[in-house]
């Protein structure tokens, strides 16, 4: 990937891309334990926002195809009241009575993605849709906190990130605004993004890594310069 990026950078003029996105995420912690559902017990069964941004470069390598390389930085956090420890090592047997202290989890998935975008629909048919797919290594730093703000545990899990979806090019629909943004701010494209994100973050199956994997819907906005 590095060699390819360098080679492309030498022969083409890349466009900068940057955006933010939000995914509906839930770490897969409960899938990795042999008994019980610790995450669901404390935080419920719902999903939460994985919010972040990405920036990178897009190279038009063929008439209808662009290659992208991006770095994505995101964060997921949740907190809930911990359980009172009944002293017997099993809060569940005591009815899972909530304590006055909050336990929390923060996850920071970072991924480097290389991908491809098909621009033929837009260029040839004026349909402002750009399908894309990308993937690459990912690294999720996590911290679990206990009541009073103290850290209970922390670590990191590595793996892969895969994403596939559609970009809806907005500026192509409004030529006047497109020209103005381009002239005044150097913005060449503004696109809405809808995709499916799969994070495979479990140390490649290592039992010593916290399972953070999930498949989530993701939505965002991206600018090209």
């Amino acid at each position, binding site marked *: 990937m590095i060699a390819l990026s360098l080679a492309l950078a030498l022969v083409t003029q890349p466009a900068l891309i940057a955006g933010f996105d939000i995914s509906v995420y839930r770490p897969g912690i409960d899938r990795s334990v042999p008994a019980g559902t*610790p995450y669901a017990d404390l935080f419920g069964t719902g999903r939460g926002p994985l919010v972040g941004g990405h920036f990178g470069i897009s190279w038009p390598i063929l008439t209808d195809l662009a290659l992208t390389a991006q770095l994505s930085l995101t964060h997921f956090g949740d907190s809930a009241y911990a359980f009172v420890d009944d002293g017997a090592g099993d809060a569940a047997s005591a009815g899972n009575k909530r304590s006055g202290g909050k336990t929390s989890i923060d996850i920071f998935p970072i991924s480097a993605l290389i991908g491809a975008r098909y621009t033929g629909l837009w260029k040839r048919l004026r349909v402002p849709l750009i399908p894309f797919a990308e993937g690459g290594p990912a690294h999720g730093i996590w911290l679990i906190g206990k009541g009073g703000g103290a850290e209970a*545990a922390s*670590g990191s899990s590595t793996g892969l990130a895969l994403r596939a979806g559609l970009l809806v090019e907005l500026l192509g629909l409004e030529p006047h605004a497109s020209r103005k943004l381009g002239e005044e701010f150097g913005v060449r494209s503004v696109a809405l993004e809808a995709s499916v994100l799969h994070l495979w973050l479990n140390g490649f199956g290592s039992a010593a890594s916290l399972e953070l994997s999930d498949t989530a819907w993701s939505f965002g906005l991206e600018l090209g310069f």
Partner: protein
Amino acid sequence: MLWCPCGTGVALAHRVRLIAVSSLLTLAPWAAGADVIVLKDEGRLLSASERETWLNRARCVCGTALSVELDLSALDSRGRAALVAGKSCITSDRRISDSCRTLWSGAPASGDSTTHTVQTSADEIAGDCSGVDSSLDLALIFDASDDDQWSAVTSLPLGVDTERPAAPTGVKAVAGEGLAEIAFSGSDDTDVSRYQVLCTTAAGEAALSDPPAASFDASGDRCGDTSDEGIRATWVCAEASEGSASVTVTGLRDHQSYRFWVVAIDGHQNPSLLSNVSTATPAPEEDLWERYQRSGGTADGSGCSSVGAPGGSGVILLVLTGLLVSIGRRGGR
């Protein structure tokens, strides 16, 4: 609400020097406020907000005497000067308003002295302790012809508030591991600036060995008003800002019972009466990590070391970040 029926100064707890500095020869206008009347507490210059805070406290601590020194050297010695406290102290017919308190009245000069010392007290300046008088002036006025026709020379604006805010209600303490979360319904008063949680052991001893500073007058001298006798500065356990509905008290011992109250404090450091009391006993809790481990989870939680990372993906990510930034710079040129 009545805090205390303070009388005039009994003991010299504080000495405040009020120095009026002027080049006045007649009734030429003095510069209003700054540098004309200077208020000091035992030699220390008090800012406008400090003046109000200090006076607000002093008037309700019996025996807080004041020594006000006026520099009258610039006034015509044939006239008569007065120091008055109140609001709009000179009426339209240039007499002293009945609503104002005359702290001193006399000839501007006596012998070689250019200053005059007025012995008074905090409550004489600010009025009795009941109710609220949020703004008043400490004014130096002058009667040039000794015919009871007064003119303002200069004045020092002061703000005083001795009314307690309403106490918080619905206090409920829920224990955690070495802590307790205190939830409450805030005071209805609009001038509440913060809340402080007070806590003691079941035996009535201070819960924390190094408590946060009290934001209220903790002198304990209420001149016979015992309605807030439960309030002690050493009982402060935590503080919450105005608008808060809960606060966490940390530094508590597990398996020991504590009592908790919340006090509302207004901008003049008046505490409310104590809220209802709530008790809680901190105990060990089961957080996500402990729950995970008890469920059989085996992940390493000892730090941010990358576990199971073939080739060190963290390093790869760092390299890629640098690469993207450098290529991006090239592309942006």
